C-alpha cells in the first residue's frame, strides 16, 4: 500500500500541471487535483498493479474534469457566472504573467474542453495517442481529430490575440 502511495505522490507535479492547464485558475486546479486524489485513495484497491499510476490518475482526473465542465455548462444556462469573476479572482497572479503566458492560458480556456484535454495530454504531458485515447475513452481516430482541431484552434486564437495586441499599440 505504501508503495502505491509513493507512486501517487510522484505524480503530483504532473497532475497539477495538467489541471492548471485545463482550468487556468491555480486554486481551482489544485482543488481538482485534491478531488482526484480523494477518489484515487478511495479506489486504491481497484487499481490494477499492471496499470501505470500516471494513466490511472489522469483518467480519474479527466473524468472529474468532464463532470465539472458539464456542471458549469448547465449552471451557465441559468446563471451569469461571469468571466469577470474569474478574472477578478486571478488578477493578482496575472500581474506576474507575461503576455505570452497569459495568451496561451486564455486561448486554452476558449478551446472546447474535449479538444483542450486532447492537445494537453499529448502536447504537454507526452502521452502517446494510444494512451491518450484509452485515457479519454475514445477511439484513436477521434483523438487524432481532436488533437489536430485543437491545435488549429489554438493557432487561430493566438493569432487573434497578437493581432489585437498590434491594433492596441497602433491606436496609441
Amino acid at each position: 500500500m505504501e508503495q502505491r502511495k509513493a507512486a501517487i505522490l510522484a505524480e503530483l507535479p504532473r497532475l497539477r500541471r495538467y489541471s492548471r492547464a485545463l482550468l487556468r485558475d491555480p486554486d481551482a486546479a489544485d482543488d481538482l487535483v485534491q478531488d482526484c486524489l480523494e477518489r484515487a485513495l478511495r479506489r486504491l484497491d481497484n487499481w490494477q498493479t499492471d496499470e501505470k499510476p500516471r494513466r490511472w490518475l489522469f483518467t480519474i482526473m479527466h473524468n472529474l474534469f468532464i463532470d465539472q465542465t458539464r456542471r458549469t455548462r448547465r449552471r451557465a444556462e441559468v446563471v451569469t457566472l461571469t468571466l469577470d469573476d474569474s478574472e477578478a479572482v486571478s488578477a493578482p497572479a496575472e500581474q506576474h504573467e507575461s503576455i505570452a503566458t497569459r495568451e496561451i492560458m486564455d486561448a486554452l480556456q476558449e478551446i472546447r474542453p474535449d479538444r483542450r484535454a486532447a492537445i494537453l495530454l499529448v502536447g504537454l504531458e507526452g502521452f502517446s495517442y494510444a494512451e491518450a485515447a484509452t485515457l479519454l475513452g475514445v477511439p484513436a481516430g477521434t483523438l487524432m481529430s481532436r488533437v489536430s482541431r485543437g491545435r488549429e484552434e489554438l493557432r487561430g486564437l493566438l493569432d487573434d490575440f497578437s493581432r489585437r495586441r498590434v491594433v492596441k499599440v497602433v491606436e496609441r
Partner: protein
Amino acid sequence: MSRRVYTERDIHMALDGELPADELPGYEAWLDANPDMKARSVRFEADRARLRQTFADALTEPVPERLERLVIGEPVGSSAGGGTWRMAAAAVLLLSLGVSAGYLAGIAGRHGEPAEEVLAGEAIAAHTIFAAEKRHAVEVGGDDREHLLGWLSNRIGLTLVAPDLADDGFELVGGRLLPAGNNRAALLLYEDAEGNRISVFVMAEKAGTAKGTYKLASDGPSAIYWLDEGYACAIVGNLPQERLSKVAGSAYRQLLAGAGKV
C-alpha cells in the same frame, strides 16, 4: 521507402512521435515540397514549445502540503477524518468546483436543481430581502449575541458561532431564523463602516459536497458557498469578488471551528 500520400494529419503525428520511422524520410521530402505545410509544422512545434514553457513551473514548484498530506496521512476511505485538509482547502478555494453533489434534502423536489444552487439561491434571496431592511433586518440584535446564537443553534441543529470579521471591517448587526424548504436556516447579518452588508447563511444539509461562487445577475450579490459533512453555508454580498472571497474564507474557517468540524 513507402510511397504514401501525406496530409496535414501527418504533421501532428510527426510532431507527436507517432509517425513510423520508415515513413519519416518520405514525410520530410513532402514537407520540403510543400512550403505551406512546412510552415504549419514549424508553427505547431513553436506553439507546443510555448505551451510547455507556460506550464513548466508547475513541475518544479513545491506541491502544496495539503495535497501531500492527503496522500500520506488520511486513512483510506475515511470521510470522517477529513477535517484537517478540508480546513486548509477552505482557506484557498475561490471558484466553482465540485464533487458531484446530491440534492438538498431540506429543499428537495425543486426542479431537481443541484443542492449547492438551491443553497446559494436561497442565501442570495434572503440577503436581497433582509439586507435592504434598515430597521427590521434582524430579529435579534448583535448586542444580545449569546441569546441570538443559542436560539439559532437550537433551531437549525448545528452549533452556530458568529464569526469575528472585524479584521475585514465587518461588525455583527444581528440574525434571524428563516425557512429553507422543509428545513430552517440561520441568517447572520454584518455591516461595515460604509454601510455595506454581507449575510452569513447557515443550515444543516446532508446532501453531498460542493463549493463555489454563484451569482444570479451580473450586477447582483454573489454567494460563496460550501456544502460539506452536513454543514451548508453561504456568504453573500455585493462586494468586489476579492474582498468577498477573503471575508468568506475567514467566516467559513470560524464557522467550521465553532461547529467542531475541524
